[in-house]
């Protein structure tokens, strides 16, 4: 889960990484709280998306114009997102920008620290045109801090004062279960070096132990899906899709598209789906008004086909259901479904074909 900028900066501040003085507001009536920040202010929309500066999500201005500027920003919709929170900060006078991040590197299976002497929005262009300008250091996972030699290599050409900030960001990365901790730019200002912008992405598997609950705006169906631990995304078509495993469910959606159909959703019931969960999944998908036919494509590994079959029957939904079951306890699952007159196919190809035809 990606934290908003102000949430990320609160964590950095907790670890002793300097951030610009600032205050979060949810309405322009709270602007009085920004007194004392500075006469020159930055107004930064707090959004989950990146690239908001170029999309008009950051405005600058004087304190006496704060009300007008805040109202302007609150009235904007930036790439589909309404501005509900603004981080009002002292406007920085930046002398130099660096790029600093720590991420989980899939290829080496180790934390990877990146540093560049020129940060800012064009860092990706720099990475393409001058890859050697991005300094990269892998840190063996069992180390709790960055060794001095690695720090020297990472920060060659940069002021020494950055080293403790790298050390602190590495601690944030490890202790807060982040998969990405990024400061861009890390800005040199007359008052010192500060994290002008910050991005923290927390590992979804670690949210419970980090005490983070996601309170996103969910539709009732999405809330239901979350309750049962389904991966669930609503799409535009008329074929409801239930699969087990992200790969197989994705492949099912792909095959529907190849055959000229349109999926209404992506629903991965996960491993070890039992009768109750399958029943819930079928009812959930059937609840979408656009769904004309439901395709249940399940291959049992941890999932047992007999459980699945009983769940499909228990759901008792009005739409027709095309099923394809294979794997553990397959024969029993097939027997149960046939006994209740459900369409059963042996292959994904046949089942998808039938669902696409039926939805026409």
């Amino acid at each position: 889960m990606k934290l908003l900028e102000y949430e990320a900066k609160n964590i950095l501040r907790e670890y002793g990484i300097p951030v610009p003085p600032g205050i979060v507001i949810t309405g322009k009536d709270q602007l009085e709280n920004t007194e004392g920040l500075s006469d020159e202010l930055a107004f930064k929309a707090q959004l989950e998306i990146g690239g908001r500066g170029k999309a008009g999500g950051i405005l600058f201005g004087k304190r006496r114009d704060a009300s007008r500027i805040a109202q302007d920003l609150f009235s904007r919709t930036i790439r589909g997102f309404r501005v509900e929170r603004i981080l009002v900060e002292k406007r920085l006078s930046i002398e130099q920008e660096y790029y600093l991040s720590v991420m989980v590197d899939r290829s080496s299976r180790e934390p990877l620290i990146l540093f560049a002497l020129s940060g800012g929005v064009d860092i990706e262009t720099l990475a393409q045109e001058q890859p050697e300008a991005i300094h990269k250091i892998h840190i063996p996972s069992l180390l709790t801090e960055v060794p001095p030699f690695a720090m020297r290599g990472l920060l060659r050409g940069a002021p020494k004062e950055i080293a403790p900030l790298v050390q602190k960001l590495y601690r944030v990365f490890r202790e807060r279960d982040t998969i990405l901790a990024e400061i861009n730019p890390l800005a040199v200002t007359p008052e010192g070096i500060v994290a002008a912008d910050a991005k923290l992405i927390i590992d979804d598997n670690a949210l419970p132990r980090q005490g983070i609950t996601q309170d996103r705006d969910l539709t009732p169906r999405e809330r239901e899906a979350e309750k049962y631990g389904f991966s669930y995304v609503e799409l535009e078509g008329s074929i409801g899709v239930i699969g087990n495993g992200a790969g197989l469910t994705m492949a099912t959606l792909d095959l529907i598209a190849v055959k000229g159909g349109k999926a209404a959703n992506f629903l991965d019931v996960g491993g070890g789906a039992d009768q109750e969960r399958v029943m819930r999944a079928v009812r959930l998908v059937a609840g979408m008004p656009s769904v004309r036919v439901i395709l249940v494509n399940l291959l049992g590994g941890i999932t047992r086909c007999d459980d699945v079959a009983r769940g499909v029957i228990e759901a008792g939904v009005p739409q027709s259901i095309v099923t394809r079951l294979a794997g553990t306890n397959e024969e029993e699952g097939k027997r149960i479904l046939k006994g209740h007159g459900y369409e059963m196919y042996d292959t994904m190809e046949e089942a998808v074909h039938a669902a696409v035809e039926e939805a026409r």
Partner: protein
Amino acid sequence: MIYGDRSCGILVTGATGKQGAFHIPLMNAYAHRVGGQGVTAGVTPGKQGQKVDGIPVYDSAKDALRAHDIQAGVIFVPSGGAADSVMELADAGLPLIITITEHIPVHDTLNALAYARIRGSTVIGPNCPGLLSPGEIKLGIIPDHLASRGRVGVVSRSGTLTYEVVHELTRAGIGQSTIVGIGGDPVIGQTFVDVLARFEEDPLTDVVVMIGEVGGSLEEEGAISTELPLVAYIAGITAPPEKRMGHAGAIVEGGSGDARSKIENLRAMGIPVASRPSEIPDLIRGLL
């Protein structure tokens, strides 16, 4: 057989849990059919003296290894304790550790893999279905009745999609040498590169099917690393674009990691990429 054969004794951790107790009998039934050792011991702390499917359960991996000849471990421990279980098995000296468990926090995985590397253990997973060498050994949860013995290797980041492809191969009369699910997590022990290197050394494998997904660049790295003839399938053409991991993701992983760019990259290397699972058998015949 690229990771073990029928003579390999198997230890299961999380043996008395729901998944462990369900899959131990399935692994043993398979071992019985092919004349293998199967699961010879289980581990669940505090449950020493119990039995699962007739197999003795021990408090620790070291206790189990003192009493049994064991070369591989399969972990069904829930996510909170699974990384610890990897380290326990590595410390006990097991050369091969299959981690079935999903939802392990990635920092726990990083630590466990680093620990296992120091102890010299090979880790497959986490969040994987394990491996199956048809006619030899089943380590994990791959539904064995879908598989058949032959000379095509299968390596996949997915679980159930792997079964789908194996099912298609078997239906088309194409048997498999070994099927390896490397796991769907961002950080995994054995990657495509490692498994393909094993297949390259394997006299029983002629060609390999590589099944990938959106995200990262492990498929491209695997394809570059091997001389073996490959057929690929990448799921997720219709998936909504993966949320990008800041600038860092783009800098390190280059392209966007979406299915289309992966497919283009693989085709540019001359690798046939199936547009659906049922095309895979024909593409393989084209290479044999």
